[in-house]
């Protein structure tokens, strides 16, 4: 059978179509197709578009999908979804597809970040969310990349270039941006600034992890998991190796597809 999970975030919407064993739905499924599109102004429209595109990519019709679960910020307004489940449970289930026995999930998305504690069998037992403050989310990095006029993709190689950093003292994204602009004006090496910024976002995330308690194995999901600089700095601060799925952005949608019965 085929199930679909749709993760409607405030920045992007992902849809995953999963092929499952009829007899054993909890067995590992096969990802038939997935799409990632910008959410835009209407989460309802984005969800439908993502679903339709995923079906197209999988060369199947909408009726072939037996069950749909919606998750994410916009999960409540999806009339064609059979059920809505929070991204906590969905991310927990999603990582199970790649790594068994994960105990901690760190998800840093475009506009929020969360830490989820699991019991080792894919069931969440505790969680902490930050969706009030841009610092500690992908948005922080975007703003800074723009201020520095450097592409986000280059952060990884730049981070590796120098061991020195300049501390960014502002905790607020808006004020940190002013601080960065002022540092550039003073002629401070951009590489050092980037290193400082990476540690800034990492420190925010680490403080969330500490409140919940870190247990290995640890998995990182969300778009920011593709940023090598953040991954490296996070591994360093936490003192653990981070397990990262091939396509970290679709973990929520994947988990939702699994939870669809």
């Amino acid at each position, binding site marked *: 059978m085929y199930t679909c999970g749709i993760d409607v975030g405030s920045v992007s919407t992902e849809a995953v179509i999963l092929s499952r064993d009829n007899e054993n739905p909890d067995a590992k499924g096969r990802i038939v197709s997935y799409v990632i599109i910008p959410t835009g102004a209407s989460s309802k429209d984005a969800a439908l578009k993502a679903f339709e595109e995923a079906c197209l990519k999988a060369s199947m019709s909408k009726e072939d999908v037996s069950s749909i679960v919606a998750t994410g*910020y916009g999960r*409540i307004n999806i009339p064609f979804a059979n059920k809505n*489940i*929070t*991204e*906590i*449970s969905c991310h927990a289930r999603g990582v199970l597809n790649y790594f068994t026995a994960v105990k901690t999930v760190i998800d840093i998305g475009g506009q929020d970040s969360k830490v989820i504690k699991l019991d080792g069998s894919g*069931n*969440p*037992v*505790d*969680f902490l*969310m930050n*969706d*009030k403050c841009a610092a500690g989310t992908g948005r922080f990095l975007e703003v800074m990349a723009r201020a520095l006029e450097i592409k986000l993709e280059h952060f990884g190689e730049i981070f590796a270039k120098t061991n020195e950093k300049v501390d960014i003292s502002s905790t607020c994204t808006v004020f940190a941006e002013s601080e960065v602009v002022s540092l550039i004006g003073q002629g401070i090496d951009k590489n050092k600034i980037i290193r400082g910024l990476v540690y800034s976002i990492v420190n925010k995330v680490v403080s969330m992890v500490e409140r919940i308690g870190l247990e290995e194995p640890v998995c990182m999901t969300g778009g920011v998991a593709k940023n090598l600089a953040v991954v490296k700095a996070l591994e360093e601060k936490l003192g653990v190796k981070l397990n990262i799925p091939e396509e970290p952005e679709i973990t929520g949608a994947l988990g939702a597809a699994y939870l669809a019965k």
Partner: protein
Amino acid sequence: MTEPGGQIRNISNHFSNSFKTTKDERFRIGWLCTYTPEEIILSAGFTPTRILGEDRVNKAEGYFPINFCPYLKSSWESILNDINKLSAIVFANSCDGMRRAYDICKNYKPQTPSFMLDVPKINTGASLAHFSNNLSELAGFLEELKKSKIEFVTLKKSIELVNKKRTLLKKLNYYYSEFDGLVDDPDFFDILKLSMISEPEIFIQDLCAYLEKIAEESATIEIAGAGENNGFPPRIMIIGNFINESKLWESFKELNCKIAVTDLCNSSRYYEGLVEDKGNASKNNTIENLLVTVAARYLNKPQCMRMANLGIKLKEVQENITNNNIKGVIFFSMKFCDNTLLFYPLLRQHLGETGVQSLFLEIEHNNFSEGQVKTRIQAFLEIL
């Protein structure tokens, strides 16, 4: 500017008389803290009305620092806007915020007399005597205001009246927490709110009638069961300070979250615990002795986190968890309430040791973020 209790909807049919009394502008004494004795205010010939802090902060912002109790700021906004045309306001020395709120009110709204009731933080024989004296002072203040003395019989009657209200609210809580879907979450909290701002005798009549109707309906409903959880949603305890968010109660309803115990400033800490009659009518025929029984009720009721011994509070919470088969605790706090927020590290550790899950939610007063809170509560329920 909102009217007091302006957000009460569904129950308006059953409580229309009570609701009408909230419009009455005469002889109303405003109060903020549940350690304020309503019975004394009543006995002086006034209607006690709780200031609910439902106004959006505007003018009030200039009087307090930014990181200050939002409930007090909103309440000050209401006071500035002359809600209720109060005859006077009684503040309690419950916390730092209240102390400053009283100062601000005394300074910037001297036309409305205000009184500071000193409430002890400890519960001993000496503190009971001290508190009783303070209640005497309050009585004196009210007598001066009304230009008439409080009689023994009047005080006794007021005590009985408020006790009756408390007993009925406890009964309402029983139906709310034990019977699935019998009393809606928003209705429960709206009735509680109304109980704090309406004229007590009328409210008691309305509530009695409502409870009769509820009792009839309850016969047809399966008890949600303090004994077992099979097939029923997990039983939740909520604990916090003054949580007055209608959208929150709607969220609980939509998520089908079973609230079995509430420990809030506007729920059980308001109505639990009666003023005890020390019996022996002839010997107790003095107002002073009555005041001691009133003082005792307030010092012995379910504690606010401002009281000294957090160990006692932990015990209270544990008893509630054990007696009500609680599976998860949701801890709510408005921002900047040190007394409440500092209880959480202690509670979390204790719950961790006993294997009960907890969810911590710091919410914005009068600025409720529905999506974010709903997501967290839903995720918590999914975990349980």
